[in-house]
């Protein structure tokens, strides 16, 4: 809090001294936000973590020491060693290499399903909350029904309809998170639409769409970002659950959740099969969380 306060006041002074009659060169909003993000230590650590995972998955073919799928029953369930850095699984596959390739799938699942969920859920919630009335009642009863199912069950239904496969898992987990977004955004919109600045925008003759996108939704951002960082983790775990049920990534395809689920059977004899994928998921979620927190502050003019 302390250093942030100082930043604010120095920004104020900068504003005052820069108050010339000539229009000042405005730095773009994006650069401004990024600048503040980089001043936040937590966010920087988060960016490093996410960057590490992204580079590792992109460079998987270069970094992998073994094939991700070839089995070697002679070397099954070996602990970490010089030959197998993170040990091997129940079929003798190199865990290190599998996790590198698995990161590609898990990162994709986490990010894409959150994008799908947010892109569908946010407009539904915003429209439902902003317009209210019968539209709101009907939408929210529908959302109630979706929320009544556990997310994983909903995802199973969607995968069953769409068919098995990693892509469909992303869509399914995305759809399963739609009601969460819709409900969250609706709640925020309900309180924000009562603010006088929304009334003022209407009095000024702004269109509903402009009001929703420029005045209402930006003020719902904080809970949305926090929810999204958690939802990345939830999606990865849902995807793992689907994989476990044979509905997600199919057998030889490495995916963190699936590796974790498979390793569960050997937790007493070969704990590395659950420890390493578990740590990977943990750190990825931590990374997104830190960045999310930093982003929330950087996007809020009050805290930056």
């Amino acid at each position, binding site marked *: 809090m302390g250093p942030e306060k100082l930043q604010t006041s120095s920004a104020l002074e900068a504003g*005052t001294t820069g108050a010339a*009659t000539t229009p000042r060169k405005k730095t773009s909003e994006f650069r401004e936000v990024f600048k503040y993000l980089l001043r936040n230590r937590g966010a920087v650590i988060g960016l490093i973590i996410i960057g590490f995972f992204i580079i590792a998955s992109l460079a998987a073919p270069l970094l992998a020491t073994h094939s991700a799928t070839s089995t070697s029953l002679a070397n099954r369930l070996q602990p970490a060693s010089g030959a197998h850095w993170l040990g091997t699984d129940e079929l003798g596959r190199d865990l290190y290499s599998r996790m590198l390739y698995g990161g590609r799938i898990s990162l994709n699942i986490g990010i894409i399903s959150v994008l799908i969920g947010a892109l569908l859920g946010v407009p539904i919630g915003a429209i439902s909350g902003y317009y209210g009335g019968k539209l709101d009642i009907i939408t929210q009863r529908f959302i109630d029904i979706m929320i009544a199912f556990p997310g994983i069950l909903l995802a199973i239904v969607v995968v069953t309809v769409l068919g098995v496969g990693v892509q469909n898992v992303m869509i399914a987990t995305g759809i399963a998170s739609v009601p969460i977004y819709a409900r969250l955004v609706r709640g925020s919109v309900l309180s924000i639409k009562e603010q006088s600045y929304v009334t003022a925008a209407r009095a000024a003759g702004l269109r509903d769409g402009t009001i929703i996108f420029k*005045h209402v939704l*930006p003020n719902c951002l904080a809970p949305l970002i926090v929810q999204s960082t958690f939802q990345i983790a939830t999606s990865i775990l849902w995807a793992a659950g689907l994989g476990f049920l044979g509905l997600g990534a199919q057998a030889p395809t490495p995916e963190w959740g699936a590796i974790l689920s498979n390793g569960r059977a050997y937790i007493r004899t070969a704990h590395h099969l659950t420890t390493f994928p578990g740590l990977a998921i943990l750190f990825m979620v931590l990374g997104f969380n830190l960045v999310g927190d930093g982003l929330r502050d950087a996007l809020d003019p*009050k805290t930056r």
Partner: protein
Amino acid sequence: MNATLPVLSVRNLKKHFPIRTGVFSRVTGHVKAVDGVSFEIFPGETFALVGESGCGKSTTGRIILRLQNATDGSVHFNQEDVYAASFQRLRLLRKEMQIVFQDPYSALNPRLTVGSAIREILQVHGLASGAEARERAEDVLIRCGLERYHADRYPHEFSGGQRQRVVIARALALDPRFIVADEPISALDVSIQSQIINLLEDLQDSFDLTYLFISHDLSVVRHVADRVGVMYLGKLVEVGDKAEFYREPLHPYSQSLLSAIPVSDPAIKKKRIILKGDVPSPANPPAGCPFHTRCPHVMEVCRTVVPELKATAEGRHVACHLVHPPA
């Protein structure tokens, strides 16, 4: 003054909010927030609407601008029916009619610089864009006593009084003719209140504005208003010229309100009229005169017959059986 046409003419305006109860949200009654209000505002004048909280004065302001829809009645702005206007037409009308809010803290979007908030409404109405919009936004801020560089500031960087200046600047940006000032100073420190009042008065002179000034502060109203309307339980009980109203209020409710204004000279002993009881619920207003439950001069007729707002011989308007004895 009455020879000119009114800027705003409100006829029998009503706003009833339904009370819904039970699982099926059945309407079991109505809160009669505004219940048959009529008045006219003439060019260049300040019409003050006074009354205690909950009497419907703010709701009246909002339904005049059609920010909420009226249940019944009509609003004419420059002889044009606001409630008959199409969506497109209403946008144009809103250029002419603006609102200043009570709470300057919630009246500004915390994520927009005040300059961009003002530019946005200029652009929406096609009045200016780009550098020109920037120029106009800064001009209007300067007109309201702020500085050019304030355009790049966010609302949280301003004090309450400055924020209210921004809110006023935003309302002025569209160059309106008529402004609803909904308790514009009651959320501000006393030391700032007079500054904002003076600003509103200066702007009225230089932009030829007409105000509907909503307030519960009778000493402020005495300073700014040309005419005063007193509301009680969703109804206008007295409308009159400021000087006459303050000299001799006719309605018992107005009399009690005026007796409550503190006097700066302690030597002056004033008779306070203290009303008994509370304001009745607007969901279940009393029969007859709405004020009869608390009126010190209550008569039998007050309990059954609703007094109408009628002109007296001197041309003042009051809704009271004492002034207009029923036939």
